[in-house]
Structure formats: structure tokens, C-alpha cells
């Protein structure tokens, strides 16, 4: 099976109305090339599960301006002030989650967990409408798994089977999101032969990865640049 694909080819997997997971903590560990290609794709009504929605007019922020996003699920949209504007105009639905709950729900989606109880958010506005349960004298909130049609993730290296390793804090949500989507596209800076990665160092085993593309845009000190 040939998993190594062209960005232009694999991006067509995404369809209007899809739920997408997009890795990254801000720009760090975000699949910049795939996001860029997505801005040129004719789709709309997307639900985006990502910690942030980029910055104003940058990354996922471009998709927002293009009106392609129907709903955003994440923990910190403050970094793009246009998110609030779109929300106020009724153009965007927002589901704000504590960052730990967001990451745990993605893991649950990938791990076949039907729901879980966490103390996080119990007694706060984010728990409104959620089932609350007392366990050992403390209040816990029932949280549901998150799943997606497609996950766009970033890794440092892939072998041609799809085994992935990450780089420093660019790891973040990526190893979780690969587990929770029907189709997983990994953008990587380097593609190596099978056997070049040590079996002990592989963070994401290949069974989670459907397609591999090589990055064209990368994050440098001066910002996002062509590779």
C-alpha cells in the first residue's frame, strides 16, 4: 500500500460538512501545508476540532474568514479575535472545552471509550447541561468522546509504512488525533525507509496513519516559510 501521497491529491478526501481534527498548539506542531491547501479547497460547513483557530487571517483563521467553518471545538480561541466577531454575528458555533477535557475526549474517541467522568469543570459554567455525578464525595462531569472524519496532523518523520515520531513540543495533540479519525493524513518534514525508525522510539504506530505528505511550509524563527 502506497501511503505517501501528494498534498493536492489527498486534500480531496475532505468534503463539505466534515468534522476535522487539526493538530497543533498555535502554529507549533500544526500541519501548515495541509491547512494552506485546505484554504484552496472548495468546501464549507466544516466542524474544526483544534485547540485554537489560528490567528486573525492566519492558518485556520483564513478558513474562518472564508466562511468555511460552521463550528469550532477547542480550548483557547482568544488568540484569534475574529472568532468572537463571527460568533456574535451568528456565523460560527463554538464549543469551548477545558484543554484537558478536550485532549481526553479525543483519546476516548480513539480508544473506544463511551464516556468518562472528570472533576474538571464541575460546578462551572462549562458544565452546564452536563450530567454530574458524585464519586467518593466529589463532583464529576460526564464527558463524551470526540471523533472526526479526517485528522490533519504534523509529525517530524514518517517511515513509508506510516510510523511517526514527533519533535519536542510540536507533539501536543497530534498523537491523540491520529487515533480518533476515520482518515488520517500526516504531514511530515522527512520521509524515511521502513526500518530506519527504532521500534522503541516510534510514538505513533503505522496502523493509525492512512496517508503521508511531505511538508512544504514549515515554522522557523521568522515565522511560517517555504521549506
Amino acid at each position, binding site marked *: 500500500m502506497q501511503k505517501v501521497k501528494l498534498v493536492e491529491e489527498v486534500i480531496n478526501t475532505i468534503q463539505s460538512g466534515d468534522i476535522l481534527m487539526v493538530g497543533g498548539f498555535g502554529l507549533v506542531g500544526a500541519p501548515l501545508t495541509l491547512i494552506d491547501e485546505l484554504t484552496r479547497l472548495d468546501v464549507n460547513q466544516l466542524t474544526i476540532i483544534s485547540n485554537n483557530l489560528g490567528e486573525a487571517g492566519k492558518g485556520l483563521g483564513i478558513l474562518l474568514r472564508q466562511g468555511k467553518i460552521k463550528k469550532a471545538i477547542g480550548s483557547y480561541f482568544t488568540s484569534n479575535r475574529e472568532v468572537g466577531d463571527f460568533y456574535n454575528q451568528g456565523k460560527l458555533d463554538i464549543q469551548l472545552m477545558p484543554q484537558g477535557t478536550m485532549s481526553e475526549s479525543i483519546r476516548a474517541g480513539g480508544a473506544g471509550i463511551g464516556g468518562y467522568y472528570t472533576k474538571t469543570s464541575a460546578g462551572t459554567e462549562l458544565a452546564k447541561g452536563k450530567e454530574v455525578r458524585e464519586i467518593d464525595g466529589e463532583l464529576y462531569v460526564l464527558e463524551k468522546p470526540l471523533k472526526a472524519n479526517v485528522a490533519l496532523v504534523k509529525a517530524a518523520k514518517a517511515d513509508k509504512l506510516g510510523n511517526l515520531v514527533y519533535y*519536542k513540543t510540536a507533539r501536543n495533540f497530534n498523537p491523540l488525533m491520529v487515533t480518533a479519525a476515520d482518515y488520517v493524513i500526516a504531514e511530515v518534514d522527512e520521509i524515511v525507509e521502513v526500518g530506519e525508525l527504532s521500534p522503541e522510539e516510534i510514538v505513533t504506530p503505522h496502523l493509525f496513519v492512512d496517508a503521508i505528505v511531505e511538508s512544504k511550509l514549515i515554522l522557523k524563527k521568522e515565522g511560517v516559510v517555504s521549506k
Partner: protein
Amino acid sequence: MSKESQELISKRAAAELQPNSIVNLGIGIPTLVAKYVDSSSVYFHTENGMIGVSELTSEDDFDPSLVNAGKLPISEGIGASYFNSGESFAMIRGGHVNVAILGALQVDEQGLIANWAIPGQNIMGVGGAMDLLSGAQKVIVTTNHTSKKGESKIVKKCTYPITSLRKVDLIITELAVFEFSGGHMVLKELMPGVSLAEVKDKTEANFEISDSITILC
């Protein structure tokens, strides 16, 4: 807040950290605490997936893929390791982080904290604040004593949405240090040159005064 106040608060918070403890620093004043701690004996955890955060030695010499929860560049201490966001919050929620130092919009006399949302404004971000309150063994609040408008941030009851049902352990401001013990808020220390009268004047919350109150200098 003045640079002097920030320094005062950060230094006092740094003194609270036991050797070998695992510490998570929030955005803002908490981040400054690292400057006053020997990072070879305290291990900084950042919720985006690392333990062993170390200060940058030079502002120009940074790796754009190595950042803290405030998205600021950091460096890698000796013995550091990386993990994904889910594992990071499992550590936090599971009680494996000894101390979290957080900023606040309000803290009330029960120890409840509000630090993520302002009534009447869109709520657009929460980040890891709720998880840190749920899980950290000890929570220290570092904050200005009063808001920009001059209102006390140490209030009788939070009017802003609370971040957690969990109560904080310590409040450090540029005027004083309060501890919560047995459900009571107790004034423990006065910052250098600060009078008890000033603290009473600028604190809306009711508080007790420790028998062993210290005046820092």
C-alpha cells in the same frame, strides 16, 4: 502592574517551591517565577507536553517548536522529556503536579478563584486552568491586589464565573500573602513597607490575621 510588584510577587512565589517539586506555571506573572528558582532542583511542567522547561539563555537563540503553554519560546533542561497533550493533562488531573501557580481575576474568601471569563464578554478561552485547579496538589495564586480600576480582586464572593469548585491554597499579591487554613482566609505576611491598614483597606474579603504574621523585608 509595576515591574517591582511583579518581581516582588514572583520572588515570594519562588520561595514557596520545595526542592524537587513538579511545578506548572500559568501565563503572566506566574511565568516570571522561573527566573527566581534554581531550575536544576525544581522541575517545570508545561501543559502542552513537556517536563523540564528551562529559561532561554538568549532571546535570539530559540527553537520555534519548543514553547510553553503561553506559546513563548523556552529551552530544554537536563533530564527533560516530551509527551502528548493527553498524557500531560493525565499528569495534571491525576495529581502528579505538586504546585500550580496561576493568575486570577478574582479570589474570594472561601478560596474560590475566577480566572477565565468576564460576565458580559464572549468566553473564548479556558485553556488548562480548570484542569490545573482540579488536579494540582497545591494551587498558589499570584495577582495584583486590585484591578486596574482600583477594585479589590480579593473579594467576599466571586462575581465572575468561577474556574473550579476546588479552593486555592495561597494568594500572593504585591501587598500581602494569604493562606487558606480550615476554611478560613488568613493574612500571613505583609510585603515590605505595607501596613495592615492598607491591606484591610484594599481587601474586600473578610480575613483573619495570623498570630505569627510576618513582615517581609
